[in-house]
C-alpha cells in the first residue's frame, strides 16, 4: 500500500521534472516577449521585470513605408501557403494511397519503395534542383512555387500515412457498398473516406504544420518581402544586423498560436487518427 503510494509520488515527480524541462524555454520566450525594454538576463525564474505588450504591438503592427500592413500580409502568406500545401498533399495523396492500398498493378511495389526513398533525403538536398526547376517554370519568388516545393515532401509522406489508413479499412466495407448498389467511386466517397476521416485530418495537419514552420526553403525561394512567410520574418528579428530578442519572442508566440489552436480543435481526431488501425473493431 505505502509502496504503491511511494511509487505514485515518484512517477509524479518524474513527470513534473519532464514538464518543467519542456516548458522552461517556452516560459523564457514568453518572459522575453512580455518584458518591456531590453533583454531580461541573469534570472532563474522567468518573469518579466517590467511587463508590457510593446513587443507584440511592434511585431503585429509593423507597417511599411508605403503604409502596407506587413505582418498581416505575411500571416496571410503563411496561411495560404500552408493551407494550399495541405490541400495539395491530401488531394494528390488520397487517390494515390487508395490505389496503392487496394489495387495490384505493375510498378506498385516500385512506386512505394521510391516514395520511401525520397523520405530519406533532407529537403534541403533538393534545393538547388528545385531552384532550377522553379526558375525554368517562372515560379521563383511566388507562393505557388513554394507550395509546389512543399508538396514534393508533403505528398510522399501523406501517401504513406493514408495508405496505412486505407489498409486498416476492411475491403468488405466497400464490397458491401458495391453489393448495396454503389459504384467503386461512390463506395470510396461515401464509405471509405468517412472511415479514414481521422487519418485525413492528421495528415492534413502535419502537411500544414511542416509548411507553416519551414524556413530554409522559403528563405531560398522567396525574395520579395511582401511574399515572406512568418518564419522568415522571425529570422529577421534574430539576425545579426537587427537582432531584437523581444520582437523575436513575441513573433514566435504569435506564430505558434494558430498551430496550437488547430491542434486543440482537431484533438479528438488526432488521438483516434494516431491509434487508428491499432485497435480492432
Amino acid at each position, binding site marked *: 500500500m505505502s509502496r504503491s503510494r511511494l511509487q505514485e509520488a515518484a512517477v509524479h515527480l518524474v513527470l513534473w521534472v519532464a514538464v518543467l524541462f519542456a516548458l522552461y524555454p517556452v516560459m523564457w520566450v514568453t518572459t522575453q516577449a512580455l518584458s518591456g525594454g531590453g533583454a531580461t538576463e541573469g534570472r532563474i525564474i522567468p518573469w518579466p521585470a517590467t511587463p508590457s505588450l510593446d513587443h507584440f504591438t511592434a511585431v503585429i503592427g509593423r507597417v511599411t513605408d508605403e503604409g502596407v500592413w506587413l505582418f498581416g500580409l505575411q500571416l496571410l502568406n503563411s496561411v495560404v501557403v500552408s493551407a494550399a500545401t495541405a490541400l495539395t498533399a491530401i488531394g494528390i495523396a488520397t487517390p494515390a494511397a487508395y490505389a496503392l492500398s487496394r489495387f495490384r498493378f505493375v510498378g506498385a511495389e516500385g512506386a512505394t519503395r521510391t516514395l520511401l526513398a525520397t523520405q530519406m533525403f533532407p529537403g534541403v538536398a533538393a534545393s538547388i534542383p528545385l531552384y532550377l526547376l522553379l526558375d525554368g517554370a517562372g515560379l521563383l519568388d511566388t507562393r505557388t512555387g513554394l507550395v509546389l516545393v512543399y508538396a514534393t515532401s508533403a505528398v510522399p509522406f501523406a501517401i504513406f500515412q493514408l495508405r496505412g489508413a486505407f489498409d486498416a479499412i*476492411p475491403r*468488405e*466495407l466497400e*464490397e*458491401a*457498398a*458495391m*453489393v*448495396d*448498389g*454503389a*459504384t467503386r467511386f*461512390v463506395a470510396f466517397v461515401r*464509405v471509405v473516406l*468517412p*472511415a479514414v*476521416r481521422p487519418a485525413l485530418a492528421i495528415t492534413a495537419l502535419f502537411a500544414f504544420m511542416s509548411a507553416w514552420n519551414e524556413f530554409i526553403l522559403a528563405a531560398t525561394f522567396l525574395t520579395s518581402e511582401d511574399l515572406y512567410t512568418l518564419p522568415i520574418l522571425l529570422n529577421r528579428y534574430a539576425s545579426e544586423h537587427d537582432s531584437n530578442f523581444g520582437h523575436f519572442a513575441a513573433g514566435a508566440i504569435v506564430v505558434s498560436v494558430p498551430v496550437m489552436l488547430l491542434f486543440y480543435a482537431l484533438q479528438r481526431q488526432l488521438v483516434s487518427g494516431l491509434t487508428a488501425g491499432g485497435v480492432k*473493431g
Partner: protein
Amino acid sequence: MASLSLQGIQKSLGGQPILRGVDLEVATGELVVLVGPSGCGKSTLLRTVAGLESPDGGVVRIGARDVTRLPPRDRDLAMVFQSYALYPHLTVRENLAFGLKLRGTSAATITERTDEVAQMLGLGPLLDRFPRDMSGGQRQRVAMGRAIVRRPSLFLFDEPLSNLDAALRADVRVEIKRLHQRLGATMLYVTHDQVEAMTLASRLVVLRAGQVEQVGPPLEVYARPVSRFVAAFLGSPAMNFLEADLGSGRLRAPGLDVVVPQPAVGGDVPGPVLVGIRAHDVVPAKGARADVRLRVEVLEAMGFEAYAHGHVGDAPFVARLEGDAARGITVGDELGLDVAAGSVHLFDRQTGRTLR
C-alpha cells in the same frame, strides 16, 4: 425472388486454380448451403456469384438474366459478410437505408421498409446507435436487416455466424431458418460448420478443391456419402475408417469381423476395401461374439451419453454409447461392439469413392 444457375465456373487466383468448373442450380426459394474445408473455394464461389470476383470461365445466371459480366450493384442481390461490414460512420437506421438511398427509393418507402425490418428483427431500440456501440449478435442482426430491407432476388451469406459465440450461434441459426421460411427467399449460404450446414440447408453442396463433390438434401448426403471425403467431413465425431478385406460376404481386419448385409455392396469385388462406421452406429455386443473389438483408452462420459475413444487393431476408433451402457466400462477394457444393420460404409481404398 429468383433462381440461380452456375455453369462451369472456373477461377484461378495467383495462378492457383480455385474453382475447377462448378455447376450448380438453386431453385427459387431454396436455401442451398455450400460447405467444405477451408481452401475448397466456397467463399470464392459465393464472391463470384456476388460479382466481387469475375470468373475465368463459366456463366452465372440469376433468374433468366446472364449476370456473369455485370457489376455487383446490377445483380439485385444482397450479401451478409462474415465481419458484417457495417458502415462504421452510419447509425443502424442509416446502415439499413444505405442501399435503398443509392437506388433512389423515396424517403417514405425507406422509412416504411426500415421500420418493417427493424420490427422483424427486433432492431427498434438500436436504430439510432452506431455499430461500435453494439454487441456482435446485434451487429449480425443489423447485417441481416440490411440485406432483407433491399428485398433482393437472391441472398448470399458468407459464414455469417462464425464470429458469434456458440450459444448465440445456435439462436441466430434458428432465426435465419425462420427468416428463410417467412420470406421464401432464395439463399446461398457458405459455411465450414457442418452443424449449420446440416440444420439450415434445403440442399447441401459439398465442395472439395474447387469442384462439387456431392449435392443433395443434408440427411441424404449424410446417410449416403459418395466418397470418403464427404463421409469424413459430415458428422461429429468424424466417421471411423478401418482398412479391411472383403471376402465371402464378410469384412475382416484385426479387431473387425462383420457381415456385409447389403448384398449389392461391393459383393462381387473381393479384396481390400476401406470400411467406414459412424460413432453412433455401434451398440455393445450382446453375446461373446462382436463385430468390432475396441480397446478403450479414453472415456468421455456425459451422463446421457458417452464417447469411448481407442483403437480397433491399429486404427483409431470412437464409439458413442448410451449413458447406461457406458457405466460399467473402464479405461483399458476391450469393448465388444455390434454394428447397426445397414450402416457399414465401404470405400475404394485408392480412389476413396463409395462402393455401391
